[in-house]
């Protein structure tokens, strides 16, 4: 065994909580990024379904109207 592997084995001793201001700095950067970026469009599947249903309804109504018009003329 490499005697220097002891450094790796004892690495956990080095674990240390960073100062509180580190998180504050990080949070500030994340917030700046969030503000600088254009807002993402939220895709809602129910909205898409609604549009499709509306188009089908209009088409159906148009077809009925045409049928009714042809029948009466």
């Amino acid at each position, binding site marked *: 065994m490499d005697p220097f592997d002891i450094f790796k084995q004892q690495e956990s001793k*080095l*674990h*240390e909580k960073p100062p509180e201001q580190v998180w504050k700095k990080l949070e500030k950067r*994340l917030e700046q990024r*969030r503000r600088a970026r254009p807002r993402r469009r939220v895709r809602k599947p129910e909205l898409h379904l609604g549009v499709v249903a509306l188009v089908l309804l209009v088409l159906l109504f148009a077809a009925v109207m045409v049928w009714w018009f042809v029948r009466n003329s």
Partner: protein
Amino acid sequence: MYAKNVGFLHLEKKDNPQPRFVEEQTLLSRLVEEDRLAQKWLYERYSPLFFSVCRRYLSSREDAEEALVSGFFKIFSQIDAYQNTGSFEGWMRRIMVNEALMMLRKRRTLVFPGDEQPFPDARDDFSIDAELSAREILSLLEELPPGYRTVFNLYVMEGYKHHEIADMLGISINTSKSQLILAKEKLRKLLLTKGIGRET
């Protein structure tokens, strides 16, 4: 794919503050949504480990803090890039090591000799008896020149191969090998002086 619990999380909103075990996949999707609670949880859990990684590479505590901030910022902003193929901790650790290396380059402290240097002999007539304290480990690493220290960290602590280190640092494989031998030789002398190691 199997579900992996990552820990006991306070990820719920205020109306349900009960902590619960959360799967890695749930945590990742919350991170993709930039959920601040999930980001804070990940930071709280891994910052002691990653701060120690940065401290091992960088002599200055301020530089280590700066590298830690940049590393976590990269983790959160590039979370989409995590492919879910390897360990999440390993992916984050690679980012942290890269940030520490970038900081070393920025400070222009990372200087390596050319390949014309004589290749040193590796010695294995040495053992370390005593336990090393955190202070001792850090002070020993701090006594190494940045080149030795970086290669030692990458090879011994992170487990990279010499060809990977050569790629990461833009040096030859032989330079990586010789820097490691020189780092170990210097550490051997330091440990003997401090009475922690002995020749066998």
